[in-house]
């Protein structure tokens, strides 16, 4: 469903429009949230952040909104996740690394080069994950990016959880051999 269709639906029938908004951007918001909260919060914290972000977006999304939704909802999700991370950090006493993306980037050429290198490595990582074939690549992403457990993954891809674990372990081994220089 396109943004304009979602916005039109929101104007005609807000509940349906909001559900459409949620369905279209759930993964995106979840991905932003987990990426910022990784290592700081639990799965429940991530879900709380997602719920909060959508509730906030729906409340802020006026009927006359006509812009692209993605940056709008992405920004809300990012701010909510950063806010939640600060809250979690204050409880645990952990520090947020200064090199995290949320901080203003340093402007040195070295930093730019480092970022480019990191991006290239991430691209390579995603490429190699794809090359594992399915369902292994999905299992790896769900497990290590979204931090889903085997039971959740098993429901998503229709395998039992033990089979998911077995495939996951083998896939990680293979991935590590493909990325020997990094891991």
């Amino acid at each position: 469903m396109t943004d304009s269709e979602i916005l039109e639906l929101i104007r005609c029938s807000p509940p349906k429009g909001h559900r459409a908004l949620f369905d279209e951007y759930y993964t995106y918001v979840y991905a932003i949230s987990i990426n910022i909260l990784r290592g700081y919060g639990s799965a429940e914290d991530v879900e709380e952040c997602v719920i909060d972000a959508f509730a906030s977006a729906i409340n802020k999304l006026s009927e006359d909104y006509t812009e692209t939704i993605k940056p709008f909802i992405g920004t809300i999700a990012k701010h909510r996740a950063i806010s939640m991370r600060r809250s979690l950090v204050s409880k645990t006493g952990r520090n947020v690394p200064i090199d995290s993306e949320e901080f203003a980037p340093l402007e040195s050429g070295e930093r730019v080069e480092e970022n480019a290198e990191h991006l290239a490595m991430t691209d390579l990582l995603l490429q190699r994950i794809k090359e594992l074939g399915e369902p292994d690549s999905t299992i790896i992403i769900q497990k290590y990016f979204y931090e889903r457990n085997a039971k959740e993954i098993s429901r998503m891809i229709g395998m039992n959880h033990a089979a998911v674990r077995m495939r996951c372990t083998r896939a990680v081994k293979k991935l590590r051999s493909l990325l020997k220089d990094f891991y």
Partner: protein
Amino acid sequence: MKKNNIENMFDNVNSETVEKIAAEYPTGDKKHRDYIYKEVERRVDGKYSAGEEVRGVETYRPRPYLRFVSAAAALVIVAGAVGGSGYLIKNSKKNSTSERAVPATEVSDNVEVTDALITTEAATAVTAPEFLTKDELIEKINNRSYENYDRVNIEYSLSRNNGVSIEHGIAMRDGITGNESLTKTWTHSADYFPQSLIDEYGLENLLKEEATCNEMFFYKDLYICIYSNGTDDPHQYEVTDRSNWKLDDPTVFRNLYSEDIAVDLDVYDIDDTTSGTVYLGRQCTEARIYADPEELQERLEKKYDIGHPKAITEPGDSSEDLITETILTVDNETGFILKAVTSIGDYKEEFAIENISFNEDAELPPDAAYIKSRIESCIPNCQETAEYDLSVLNKDAAGSEESADEEQAAETANDNIKTTYEVNSKGQTYGPGSYSLEPEYIDKLPDYVAIGIDGGKYTGYICTKEFLNIFVDGERAFDMQKELGNVSDTAVATEINIYDKDGNFKMTRIFYNEPENIK
């Protein structure tokens, strides 16, 4: 270089990567999404008027976990019909001495049934299954002696998720040159696709798009992979340095499912009792390996230092009494795992070798000329690939073409043979025929072909045109003489004139032929 923990592979990924992952890999099943959305609704409570309900907006598209051929990366895959099928492994003489190979699917775990299905000769050769003890079996598998053969071909199928997805592969190794190839093709049944996807894209399109194939060539220092699928999209290729690629380390067979099991035998429990069977005409040993899934996971994580993501703990699941169990069929001679059927509760996956052949029975991996021609019909998957130095491949391919040219030259030389025939007093050519005595070579044969009849008792010449005007196939006319003359009730006796080199009549001889060979 400092190594990273693989469980932290997604630490500090940037927004762009997050977006890519979100677009490619949806998360959360519908039930869970519904639960989350209810919470969202609760927080925006009051925004809806009474009686308004959220129904009928099922726009959730779980972009399949299957969308692996993206325009950008185009990594995986293609329909097996491409390329690889041209290199189907010929049936191993060791496997089957007749023309008929034994499909793995026809061979059950039961010895008696297996014997009944293999070819007669193979069954005769292997009548009393012998088997390895548990310790011998482990040693054999770990020795991987199949890698000592100069040439090995393996064709296999791997059925996952109770047959919903099938991987078919052909692996070839030339131990002399070190060149290898591995073609993997994936196909899926309709059950593989969520209904929402089928509704949106249509089953036929999905089946085509996800019928994917990787043709991987490990040629000298090059790794070349051609990705394609069942659609009309152009095939893409990727080239990199072979040393960067570990899928053939140390041989391409280490990339197969059999190796997944072989390398982790130590983390399984193995039944002390083994039994003998015959599979693909080879003496094999069957054994059962098993483990509690929880324990197996722990052992594997410990062995490979694989951890869980930091924030999430994996809940135990001791309430479900599942056992991971694999029945192995192992080749007694080489230790290769020819078949492995794994079941975990209601989940099942089955790996089965369909053909295995060694040395002279095995084909060589595709050569430079073939790989080059495949690349020429594809587009590079990125700029780096487009600029990759393929001079080694091109040079070797050119060498192959030169050889082909030499063969062509030899053929051309043969074409000129006719000009070397002797010419008789009437200006007609005569001599031994350098080509088969068949109508298609009539222009290349002399006017009179020298022959010997009855073991050389009579010699002379036949008039080529006259002879071929009588018989459908001149070679066959000669071949049939002795046998038909003595035993056939249907053979037709045909008189043939014999001449001298100048075309003068010498005698008439009777040729015996089946009616269908007489014009």
